[in-house]
């Protein structure tokens, strides 16, 4: 978007307060949603909870196609539709709520750098595992991705998506990596996050920021999702401060909420989350 268009949208966003009927759209929780999409959706939900903004989670099979950028989750607020964590953070900021106002310039630079690290390594590793590892693709991804649609549409859509993701992996140089190398990258990323977190409650000490929401979304999903093997979640479990961090955020922001809560669903259907 050009600068003028962005300024216009910000102006529109700032005009109204946050409504009661704001909605977040994602794919179907039990049968359709995949690891990476679940992580992104949980990150946005955590962020909105941290800002104390009410949101309803609505599951639709065609959420990906409804989204303006083709990625889930997206939120429908008033008469605007915004997708992905980055733009949502800016949108919420235009409405007057921000978690990172108290940070100074150097800390903001650090926060952005760590968010890029998570997107670059964790999200790409999740996509690799889902779409480029043949066993996972056959047993989990293909059946789940096309489950709302009849044959042959389900096969066609999942092959199309797989081809798209593999093209992207090839362009950034991940196509040549083996699964062990990808898991090593995840380990390195978790090590860095663990070092940065240390013994603090949140990444920037007392107050949670969008970085905390993003890290929570990804790590919690990895920990509570059952795949073919447990290697990915084992890598995260090696770092006790990260698991404690996830538990803390879950207890603080997600317990005691009745609406489509990921924790209750995750715990009760832990075995069947991705099956």
């Amino acid at each position, binding site marked *: *978007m*050009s600068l003028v268009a962005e300024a216009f949208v910000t102006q529109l966003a700032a005009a109204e307060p946050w409504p009661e009927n704001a909605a977040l759209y994602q794919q179907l929780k039990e049968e359709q949603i995949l690891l990476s999409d679940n992580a992104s959706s949980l990150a946005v939900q955590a962020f909105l909870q941290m800002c104390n903004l009410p949101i309803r989670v609505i599951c639709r099979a065609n959420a990906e196609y409804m989204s*303006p*950028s*083709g*990625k889930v989750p997206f939120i429908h607020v008033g008469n605007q539709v915004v997708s992905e964590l980055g733009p949502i953070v800016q949108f919420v900021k235009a409405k007057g709520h921000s978690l990172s106002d108290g940070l100074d*310039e*150097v800390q*903001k*630079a*650090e926060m*952005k*750098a*760590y968010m*890029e*690290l998570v*997107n*670059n*390594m964790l999200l790409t590793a999740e996509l690799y595992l889902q779409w480029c590892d043949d066993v996972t693709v056959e047993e989990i991804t293909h059946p789940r991705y096309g489950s709302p649609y009849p044959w042959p549409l389900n096969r066609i859509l999942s092959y199309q998506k797989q081809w798209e993701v593999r*093209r*992207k992996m090839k*362009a*950034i*140089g991940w196509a040549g990596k083996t699964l062990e190398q990808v898991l090593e990258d995840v380990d*390195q*990323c978790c*090590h*860095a*996050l663990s*070092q*940065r977190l*240390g013994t603090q409650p949140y990444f920037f000490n007392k107050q949670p920021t969008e970085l905390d929401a993003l890290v929570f979304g990804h790590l919690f999903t990895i920990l509570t999702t059952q795949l073919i093997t447990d290697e990915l979640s084992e890598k995260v479990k090696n770092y006790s401060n990260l698991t404690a961090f996830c538990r803390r955020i879950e207890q603080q922001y997600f317990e005691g909420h009745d609406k489509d809560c990921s924790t209750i669903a995750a715990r009760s259907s832990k075995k069947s989350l991705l099956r």
Partner: protein
Amino acid sequence: MAAPMELSCWGGDWGLPSLHPESLTVMAYAKFSGAPLTVNTINNSWRAPKGDLPVLVSEDTVISQPAKILNFLRKQKYNADYDLSAKQGADTLAYIALLEEKLHPALLHTFWVEAENYCSVTKPWFASRIAFPLRLYLPGKMSREALNRILLTKGGPPLYSLTEVEAQIYRDAKECLNLLSKRLGTSQFFFGDTPTTLDAFVFGFLAPIYKVCFPRVQLQEHLKQLPNLCRFCDDILTCYFRLTVSGQSPAGQDTADANLQKLTQLVNKESNLIEKMDDNLRRSPQHPPRKLTTLKLAAGGEESSPLSRLSP
């Protein structure tokens, strides 16, 4: 001592040891950590296009990506991050991810996709260093790969045209440069007084933007407004690469610039001479009345003073 290590990479110009960001990163890291690398610049070699450059060859192991090369050097005990705390190591990874995501697409675009830059600078430069007939094919392939990468990673909806994607990536790159400048502040390197891996990566990405003379230079202009980053690049070049800031004289445009410089210097000298002569001429009509007074005062100096006045 470790076996001799040889690094194959693209050569340099405009005062840089290499134009390729990844090669530059590896060379900078080797200088920082004191690793003895013999650098072999690819000139007229058929090995150039196989896989990616830079490539490190040590005994029988061949390693090709910068991150892996740096890991290998660390295992050989050439570690520039020895003094870093764990948190600083984590910060290094995060900032490298930021560079890759935000700055690299714009760098690729400036070098390989921007039509004027590609046709007038990048393609001739690379073509002159690759053997015939590969030079007819390889620059085009690298350009297509760069465009592909930009479109696949950044080009999804809601950005529908190439101009929108370009606007977005340049905005991201400028924001990234601002963030780096804020992080660097007034210190000499990113983590205190000794350079580390992060300094190598930042130098590798910034130096080509800073030094290479392109026709379309919006990123370079933005970088020049951040003096601490420019000083950072210049410091590393002078201290670790033993090149002067103005660099060696490359072919093409810079000889024209050098000639222009010489011409302006000559013109300046001439105008200075003319000014001096003007001054003399202006002062001389006033001298006769003074001479009369001095003649009156100093009886013996009559002959010597006019001679000393008129001779230049």
